[in-house]
């Protein structure tokens, strides 16, 4: 097993005074997909936000490649390779696809920006066709791909995705999930995937994290979780 690229230790966090996570610890290993599943309101989204620095952290720490990044502001985290992709508002709706990618590459030098955008467009050819369209005229799936593309422009090491397939038609969702697995297989990225659709996430993921009421209920191979009928039924609506 490779080294853990990200380690969360005893994280307790919330929004202002409203605590959501209670003493949460987990690890993410290099080049794996960690599926984060659990019932509604269990703190899955908050987990990602906490790692990225968008919540109030009461205690605990986040270690990334051996470095304590707990208190770093989000834009610094983005710069050093930790990417966070929320479910909504993840693109600039009024800007064109091309402009969105340009903004994603904002801090990069011009030639490098050009190369990376080219790279990313080759990964998602459908975006190439829509370059001059405003992001709001894209379909749901296309928009998520644009958001993903924008993240990839910055060559992150670890990408945290918050329910990327929500509100997407099943066909489109499957397509998106395939693209995500490509990120692990072909681009050697590390992915933390929060999903409402537990079965799909667990099938895709290598390891799984089960969140219940703000605490970690299970951390281990996703296969085992899939087969644990008891847990599956109780928390995930799996039959």
């Amino acid at each position, binding site marked *: 097993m490779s080294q853990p690229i990200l380690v969360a230790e005893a994280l307790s966090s919330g929004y202002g005074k409203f605590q959501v996570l209670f003493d949460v610890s987990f690890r993410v290993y290099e080049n794996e997909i960690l599926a984060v599943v659990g019932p509604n309101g269990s703190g899955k989204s908050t987990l990602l936000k906490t790692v990225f620095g968008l919540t109030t952290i009461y205690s605990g720490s986040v270690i990334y490649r051996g470095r304590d990044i707990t208190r770093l502001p989000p834009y610094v985290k*983005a710069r050093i390779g930790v990417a966070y992709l929320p479910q909504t*508002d993840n693109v*600039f*709706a009024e*800007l064109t696809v091309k*402009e969105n990618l340009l*903004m994603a590459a*904002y801090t990069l030098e011009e030639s490098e920006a050009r190369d990376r955008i080219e790279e990313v467009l080759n990964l998602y050819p459908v975006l190439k066709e829509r370059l001059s369209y405003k992001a709001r005229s894209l379909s749901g799936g296309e928009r998520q791909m644009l958001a993903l593309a*924008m993240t990839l422009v910055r060559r992150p090491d670890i990408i945290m995705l918050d329910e990327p397939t929500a509100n997407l038609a099943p066909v489109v969702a499957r397509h998106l999930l395939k693209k995500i697995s490509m990120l692990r297989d072909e681009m050697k990225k590390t992915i933390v995937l929060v999903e409402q659709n537990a079965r799909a996430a667990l099938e895709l993921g290598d390891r799984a994290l089960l969140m219940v009421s703000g605490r970690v209920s299970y951390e281990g191979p996703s296969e085992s979780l899939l087969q644990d009928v008891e847990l599956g039924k109780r928390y995930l609506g799996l039959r």
Partner: protein
Amino acid sequence: MMLVLPSTEYLIYSIAYGSSLALLCMGLTLTYMVTKVPNFAHATLAITGSAVTLLLIDRIYHVFYLEGGASSLGKTPYYTLYLIAPISAFLIVGLVALIQYLLVLRPLSSRGVGVIGLMIATLAFDIILVNILTLTLYLMPTAYFGKLIGPSLKGFDVSVSALGISTSFSRLALPVIAVTLAIALHLFLTRTKFGVSLRAAIENPDLARVLGINVDLAYMTSWFIAGGLAGASGALYIFMVENFKPAVASLVIVSVFAGSILGGLGSIYGALLGGFLVGVTETFVVVLIQNILAAYGLPITLTHYQRLFSLLIVIVMLLLAPQGLTGLISRVGRGGR
């Protein structure tokens, strides 16, 4: 039918007035998009541009003509003034608008003052600005500047005659400058990385920040540009009016609001269109209707009521179609969804 149409000269004036309003509306919409607050001081910013122009031209006139005896230079310096005036007004008023953002709107907004409170703050800034302006113009030493309240720069306005039409240079310059600035703004906002980042920062500042965009710089630049547009508008507008008084801004602001609201407060191009439409309506259309009524034997003077039209536009638009024309157009475009 031809008797009913106002003269071509008036049409030219109307287009010029519409252009100056269009500039003002673009700036107002820009500041609204950034701070989500309608800036009541916007027209006063324009008047500041007028004042700057007045001071500049008056001083240059004194230096070159009265004292320097350079009357032999003829009209040429006048034409350069048409360039110098809007540029300096752009820069200075842009700075004033930036000050309004930095000293009033940003601190109050970060303190959690709501929309209404911020609106009142802009009203307060408006009061203070217009009064400082009036004070400055009153106190300028007459020996140095000449009397500055109530004069007109019309005397400086070069008259132009062609094709049997006699008008003045400022009325021709205004639409040209308005279109130029609009195009420049469009290019800036769509073709430059920094310009695109402004749009991004306005739309989704949190995402922009994560991407490393300096959102605060974007906001400051937007306000500077908006102020600059207002200043340029005021700089040329002053050539068209008699009897300049800073207080006139409190009358114009309603027309600016009307134009921005008509165009839709989320679109700069809407503002351009809306401002122009309101300007032309207030002048040309009003006179047209007046003439039509007179032709039918109802001689009512409607020109006194020209502001009534913009005020009605404000109220009607807000009640019926607050998203403005651009909102309606995009709704139709999307198939009424």
